[in-house]
């Protein structure tokens, strides 16, 4: 267990440059982040702002062009396997093996994380209960709904009881009921001490769930703080008036208007 009191996630000058036929593209341009242990941290930004690229670097799935990143004090580039033991990852679009059953998938993940067969089976049972999929446990995933797949993906990310859980747009495409179920599960997981790093396009989701948020735009962090701080800062800058919403903060931070942002940012009111 990480005990030095430092941040659960730290990024310093994180840069990702993709080289393509049309030249270099800097998807992430010097991101600095500190996420405290036990927080639910929201990482927001418009499509293509660099959210997923940042998460992929933090979770060892993408090489870092320059800068450094640590998870629970472990350098993700130098000790990727050690970092992987500390984190759970549920990426955008629950990518699961459609030919396995829910139980088989969780047992497999348990085994890959080094659990014994008996412990992996026991852990799968616990997680299936946690995400309320016991009835569907022995059905192949091809038959699962989108919401069920997301919940199973979340369970798979929790098999090894990670210290930090990375979730990349975990509720995108879900109906309001499934979204609320995921929110409840995240609160419960966080209640057990797991740090949650969450990317989302849903501003209400960030407002409801997150202790602190960062807004990334064009590869750079443009705002960082608690939702309350960011709203207060905008209210002051505007010289009072109506209390701003997180939507207003987002639009202000990314230089977009409501008209411009409508096609890019899904503003959820459910």
């Amino acid at each position: 267990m990480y005990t030095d009191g430092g941040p659960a996630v730290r990024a310093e000058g994180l840069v990702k440059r993709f080289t393509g036929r049309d030249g270099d593209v800097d998807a992430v341009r010097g991101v600095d982040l500190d996420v405290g242990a036990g927080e639910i941290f929201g990482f927001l930004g418009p499509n293509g702002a660099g959210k997923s690229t940042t998460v992929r670097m933090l979770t060892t799935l993408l090489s870092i062009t320059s800068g450094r990143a640590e998870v629970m004090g472990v350098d993700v580039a130098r000790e990727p396997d050690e970092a992987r033991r500390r984190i759970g990852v549920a990426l955008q679009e629950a990518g699961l093996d459609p030919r396995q059953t829910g139980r088989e998938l969780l047992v497999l993940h348990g085994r890959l994380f080094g659990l014994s067969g008996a412990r992996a089976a026991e852990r799968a049972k616990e997680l299936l209960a946690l995400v309320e999929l016991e009835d569907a446990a022995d059905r192949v995933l091809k038959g699962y709904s989108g919401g069920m797949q997301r919940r199973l993906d979340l369970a798979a990310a929790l098999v090894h009881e990670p210290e930090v859980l990375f979730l990349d747009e975990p509720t995108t495409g879900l109906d309001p009921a499934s979204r609320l179920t995921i929110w409840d599960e995240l609160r419960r997981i966080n209640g057990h001490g797991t740090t949650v790093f969450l990317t989302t396009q849903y501003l209400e989701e960030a407002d409801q769930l997150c202790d602190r948020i960062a807004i990334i735009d064009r590869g750079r962090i443009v705002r960082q703080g608690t939702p309350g701080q960011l709203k207060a800062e905008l209210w002051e800058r505007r010289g009072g008036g109506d209390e701003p919403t997180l939507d207003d903060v987002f639009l202000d931070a990314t230089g977009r208007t409501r008209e411009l942002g409508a096609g890019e940012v899904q503003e959820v009111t459910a």
Partner: protein
Amino acid sequence: MSATIALGRRALREAVRQPDALFMTMFIPLFFLVVNTGQAAEIFPSASTEFLKGQGYGAFQLPITLLLAASFGMAALFLVEEIEGGYFDKLRAIPVPRYSIVLGRLVAEGAKGLVLATVIVLLALPFGITIASGIPGFLLLVLLTASWGVVYAGFMQLIALKTRSAAATNSGGLIFFPLLFLTPNFVPRDLLTEPMEIAATVNPVTYLMEALRSLILDDLVWDEILPGFGVVLALGVVMLVLNVRMIERYD
């Protein structure tokens, strides 16, 4: 190693749960066996065709059937499906050696190849085809076929990892057909025209085919058998190294 075995078992379950894919892997090669034998058996009667060594033309064609069955590269198609669907990244975020992700599939492909080759040979027996090299030869025949299946799946996995595209992986798999036809697939190498003989001589699949054919038509003739195993071993090492390298550098 335990991660490779766990992932290999998963890949086998996956194959069993996709019976239509397994059916095509069996059906197409057996279809070619029937059609090729039907077309050429009259030209090469058993009694007067020396290279058949007393067997029917079907025995001469059986190696092609075995090689075709082993060259579907289903492992790579499942892999690319996982890359496109995102599960591959989920596996990469687990602290297992990256090579176990590709090796697990290859182990499963080997096990599947053993079963497929056994079933095809057993299906051929009632049609008068015998394995002249006996039980040891039968075992070598099955082992060589399955080993080739692993090599070819390794090649297809390289395409999958490089292109990350199902369409490209499928197209890449077609490269086997020219290789299969630039071999002594209808007659022995010394009866080919000179350009075809040269092409067949430089084609590694030829040595594989000749080894399989030798096991069916002759007693254990090591001069014919060992080059086949040599080809599989050499290409296997190359594919293994390239697969491991590719997944270690996958970004």
